[in-house]
């Protein structure tokens, strides 16, 4: 029954999405308040119906209704409740429904809380959101219906991939989708602006919180995914340049560029068409990411719905959205007023440079990801690129960008002098040079690259701190300036310092990680890094839906011992195996142990890793996400937007 309710709700949502894409667009061009109000109502109702459909599917998962095909394929009755619930989005159909849910909730939010938008503009944004929603609901209903029934219903279902049965994976997809779909708002804003032919500072002020929120969620989502891969896959790596990881990294890089160019647009009215283009491209990269995972065009560990028919459909959606938007851009953008001029040394110029580097970095990742597709079309060869490619291309582009990060906030708008800038950055510069010399002295000349990485990290952190120091020094009175510093400045400082922490983690991991793979017998002791690892016991255990081989270890460092376990789990219903790594987490690095195959002599294959500063990678990402949150909390977004609305004659029309 729940299945049918969900199915009908989704069909009704499609009708509403269609209404939402057509009616407000007509209303905006005729300036008809009733039609525009209908668009807002459709957006709100659509969100309710998609929510109902999602709730029905979640209900079916929790109640293990195996007459639904997706439930039967992805849930087993022994699965714990939380993983039955998370199973709702642990499959292609359900995750697309979650995608649509987030999209429609964002649409409703624009309808309900977009009071301060120009009414015609709001109507056009809603219409474009409606079009995206229509496309995806059609995609769901016709190629991947989550409510398809099975008859007869099986007695029990197949299990959710055990790798996905993990707390990290319960929230990883929703976070990523909040990011991807959040950029759809920037896309809708960009296209609506092209239709209206006008972009101003107020536009940037409206779009920035959405971009910030999407960027923050995406940052957290990527970090979580990376952390999950680290502890669950048992390889001890944190980033693999897998096509699907790249699919999330590309919108992130482009979104970062958008965040900064929108700032220039908001403050200085410059970079108008560039910002519009970034708005279109960022969401397009999110769509392409979806295409990548679901079309089977590239093989990846993540491809959980390889079906060419779906691929063709998503390709059609990409052509319809990105293609149409870029064509509109080519047609309308040249006529748009380009903004204020700025000198070669100014914050605008700095941020433009930042954008160019980020664009180049995105292009490099894009090329690496799609190289196999392009090469196969050109030369029939199957070639894919791996980490060496990215080390040669991505790293050289990102390094100057990271150096530049510190300059941006220290530059003044419009016009600045190089000499003044250097004087302002004297402190961080001196600290960085000292850090570099000290690092070379400590780690030796063979580790110059690692020392440079550490110095870059110091540069970023100290440079971020200098932004605060400068602010506090200028505004009279320390306490007063601390109080009056806008939250967005703290956001900037956190995010840039987080980047520094991230760089430190990556540098240390690249230069100093070490590993050992050995066959160990109980009682045997090995040393990795400064840690003594003793295998104590190997025993069998059972979990709710798995059998496990549990290896007990003792980690000893500086005379202090702690117990540690690593498991090898076998899930009988899906006949698959997972590894639970044992990780001793410390501020300055982790010791990581993962067990493999037991052998006949009573030993077990053990992989040991020493991971210096690895936690800093995710810690840095968390700081960046916190920076995003802090910026979001800034009063300026609320005050500024409200002021802009008051400035428009007539304000918002009252709905009929």
């Amino acid at each position, binding site marked *: 029954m729940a299945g049918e309710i969900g199915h009908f709700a989704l069909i009704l949502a499609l009708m509403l999405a269609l209404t939402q894409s057509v009616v407000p667009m007509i209303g905006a061009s005729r300036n008809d308040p009733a039609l525009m109000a209908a668009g807002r109502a459709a957006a709100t109702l659509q969100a309710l119906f998609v929510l109902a459909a999602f709730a029905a599917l979640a209900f079916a998962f929790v109640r293990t209704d195996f007459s639904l095909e997706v439930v039967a394929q992805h849930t087993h009755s022994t699965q714990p409740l939380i993983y039955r619930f998370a199973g709702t989005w642990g499959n292609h159909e359900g995750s697309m429904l979650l995608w649509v849910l987030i999209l429609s909730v964002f649409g409703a939010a624009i309808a309900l809380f977009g009071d301060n938008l120009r009414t015609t503009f709001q109507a056009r944004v809603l219409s474009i959101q409606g079009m995206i929603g229509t496309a995806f609901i059609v995609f769901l209903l016709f190629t991947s219906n989550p409510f398809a029934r099975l008859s007869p219903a099986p007695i029990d279902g197949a299990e959710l991939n055990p790798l996905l049965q993990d707390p990290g994976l319960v929230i990883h997809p929703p976070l990523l989708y909040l990011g991807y779909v959040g950029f759809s708002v920037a896309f809708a804003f960009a296209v609506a602006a092209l239709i209206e032919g006008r972009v101003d500072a107020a536009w940037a002020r409206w779009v920035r919180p959405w971009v910030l929120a999407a960027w923050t969620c995406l940052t957290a989502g990527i970090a979580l995914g990376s952390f999950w891969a680290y502890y669950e896959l048992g390889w001890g790596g944190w980033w693999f340049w897998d096509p699907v990881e790249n699919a999330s990294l590309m919108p992130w890089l482009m979104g970062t560029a958008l965040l900064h160019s929108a700032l220039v647009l908001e403050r200085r009215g410059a970079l108008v068409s560039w910002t519009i283009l970034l708005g279109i491209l960022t969401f397009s990269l999110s769509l392409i990411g979806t295409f990548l995972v679901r079309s089977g065009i*590239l093989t990846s560990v993540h491809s959980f719905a390889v079906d060419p028919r779906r691929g063709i459909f998503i390709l059609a959606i*990409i052509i319809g959205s990105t293609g149409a938007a870029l064509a509109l*851009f080519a047609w309308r953008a*040249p006529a748009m007023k380009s903004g204020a001029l700025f000198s070669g040394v100014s914050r605008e110029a700095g941020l433009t440079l930042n954008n160019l580097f980020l664009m180049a970095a995105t292009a490099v990742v894009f090329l690496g990801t799609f190289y196999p*597709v392009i090469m196969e079309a050109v030369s029939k060869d199957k070639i894919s690129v791996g980490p060496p490619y990215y080390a040669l291309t991505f790293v050289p582009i990102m390094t100057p960008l990271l150096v530049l990060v510190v300059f941006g906030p220290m530059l003044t708008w419009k016009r600045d002098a190089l000499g003044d800038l250097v004087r302002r950055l004297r402190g961080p510069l001196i600290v960085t040079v000292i850090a570099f010399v000290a690092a070379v002295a400590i780690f030796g000349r063979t580790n110059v690259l690692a020392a440079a990485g550490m110095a870059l990290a110091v540069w970023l952190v100290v440079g971020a701190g200098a932004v605060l120091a400068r602010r506090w020094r200028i505004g009279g009175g320390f306490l007063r300036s601390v109080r009056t510093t806008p939250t967005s400045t703290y956001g900037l400082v956190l995010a840039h310092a987080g980047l520094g922490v991230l760089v430190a983690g990556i540098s240390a991991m690249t230069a100093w990680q070490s590993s050992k793979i050995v066959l160990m017998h109980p009682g045997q002791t090995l040393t990795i890094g400064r840690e003594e690892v003793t295998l104590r016991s190997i025993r069998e255990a059972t979990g709710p839906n798995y059998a496990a081989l549990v290896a007990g270890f003792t980690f000893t460092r500086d005379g202090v011992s702690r117990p540690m376990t690593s498991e090898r789990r076998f899930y009988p219903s899906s006949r698959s195996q997972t590894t639970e790594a044992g990780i001793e987490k410390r501020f300055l690095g982790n010791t990581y142990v993962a067990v493999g195959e037991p052998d006949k002599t009573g030993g077990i294959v053990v992989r040991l890793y020493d991971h210096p500063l690895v936690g800093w990678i995710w810690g840095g990402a968390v700081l960046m996400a916190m920076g995003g949150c802090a910026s979001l909390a800034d009063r300026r977004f609320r005050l500024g937007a409200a002021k802009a609305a008051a400035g428009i004659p007539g304000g918002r029309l009252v709905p009929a």
Partner: protein
Amino acid sequence: MTRALFAVPVALFAALIVFFAYGLTQDPSRIPSILIDRPLPAFDLPGLDATSPGFGTAAFGSPAARGEPKLLNVFASWCAACPQEHPMLTRISAEGVPLFGLDWKDQPEAAKTWLAQLGNPYARIGSDPGARTGIDLGVTGVPETFVVDGRGRVRYKQIGPITADDWEKTLKPMLVRLRNEA
């Protein structure tokens, strides 16, 4: 000029779509052989036991000593799809096509038992328990079948079991063509 600049993104996008559309028509799991149109790598394999002879590259002819086009089938007693392919191989062999078998990553004893149960369609069998020749040939799994022309060059590689359809529509016409080519 500026107008043209604004059209660059949409033009790039159009080019990209062509690649994507092409990529969609390709099967990512299909890995083409780099040996196509190249001579078979040199190998000389023993038979399954001391009494049965194996074969080497020489069996496939060379540009100097031209022979019949032949099939080289990779199989193993542990392979799940091989029994499914077996009747097809028996039929191909009965049609008079020289069929060579490469017993890949397998114990010769196990392969002998397996062939005793199902029947032996192969003219010669080479045993490759350590998969050294398999690596040279770029074997990715079993079963796989190479079409080798009279000059000893690989002309085609079939991945997975040969179905009746594959045989009638692809392999058989190809063998006829290769025979006439000489």
